[in-house]
């Protein structure tokens, strides 16, 4: 069942302060967080978080399309192995 709209999105409050500080510092930094349950808010766009998956901090570069999703969605906890083959990566 979806979360009630009247409650608003859930986010751990202390992330907001850290995100504000990171945006103002304008340095290249990774904010390492354990809060996989927090919703990605518009003020996080452009920042890079390291989201803990139980073993390591997966870098999550927040973009506009990710707003409304949870941090944990981008940091899988199961190991996936595949072949690189002809797959490409675009440098952001």
């Amino acid at each position, binding site marked *: 069942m979806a979360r009630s709209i009247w409650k608003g999105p859930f986010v751990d409050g202390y992330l907001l302060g850290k995100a504000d500080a990171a945006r103002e510092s304008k*340095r290249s930094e990774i904010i390492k967080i354990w809060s996989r349950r927090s919703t990605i808010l518009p003020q996080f766009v452009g920042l890079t978080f390291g989201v803990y998956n139980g073993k390591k901090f997966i870098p999550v570069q927040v973009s506009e399309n990710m707003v409304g999703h949870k941090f944990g969605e981008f940091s899988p906890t199961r190991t996936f192995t595949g072949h690189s083959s002809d797959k490409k990566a675009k*440098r952001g």
Partner: protein
Amino acid sequence: MPDPRILVGEIGRPHGVRGLVKIHAFTTEPSDIASYGPLTDAEGVRTFALGWLGGGVARIEGVADRDAAARLTGTRLYVARERLPPVEEEEFYLADLVGLDAATVEGEPQGRVVAVEDFGAGPFLTLRDAEGRETLLPFTRTVVPVVDVAGGKIQVALPDEVIVQPEPGENGLSEEPATAIAGASPLPRRSQHRRNGGQRDAAD
């Protein structure tokens, strides 16, 4: 230096009696495996010209019956790196990035690229140093300013790390006070029922 040959698939079990085979394609689009021209086996001795039929089934030139197809099951298929189409600006084949040596701008070695992954939030590199420690870095122009595939190295600018420790409330403990309803128990009905040893409350 990256491997000049790239693994793109594997021949699976025979399909039917006319020499068709199932193909496990590792390419982004499965049908692309047939578009790179003849493929070779691991030793580079045999060549296979595939005709893609859809649904993971392909015809291999020169293979006309099921027995011949069955003998090829498990054969890994490779393509020469130069057969892959050129990439756009700021784009790199993962096969080119894996194996590159990483060093900081000051020249301090940071290990070797062992994997490039993308879980929907931008690609990132996994570096592993001589002691086996892994470092995960976002693949951005800020963090990886120089990628020299021909030279076999990348230059990284390690980002600062801000550690945000979990606070009370993150480990499942609610920070919000329990809802106060006059006369209501904080426990759900089932828990209350068990606490009473299976006896119903007088109020019930």
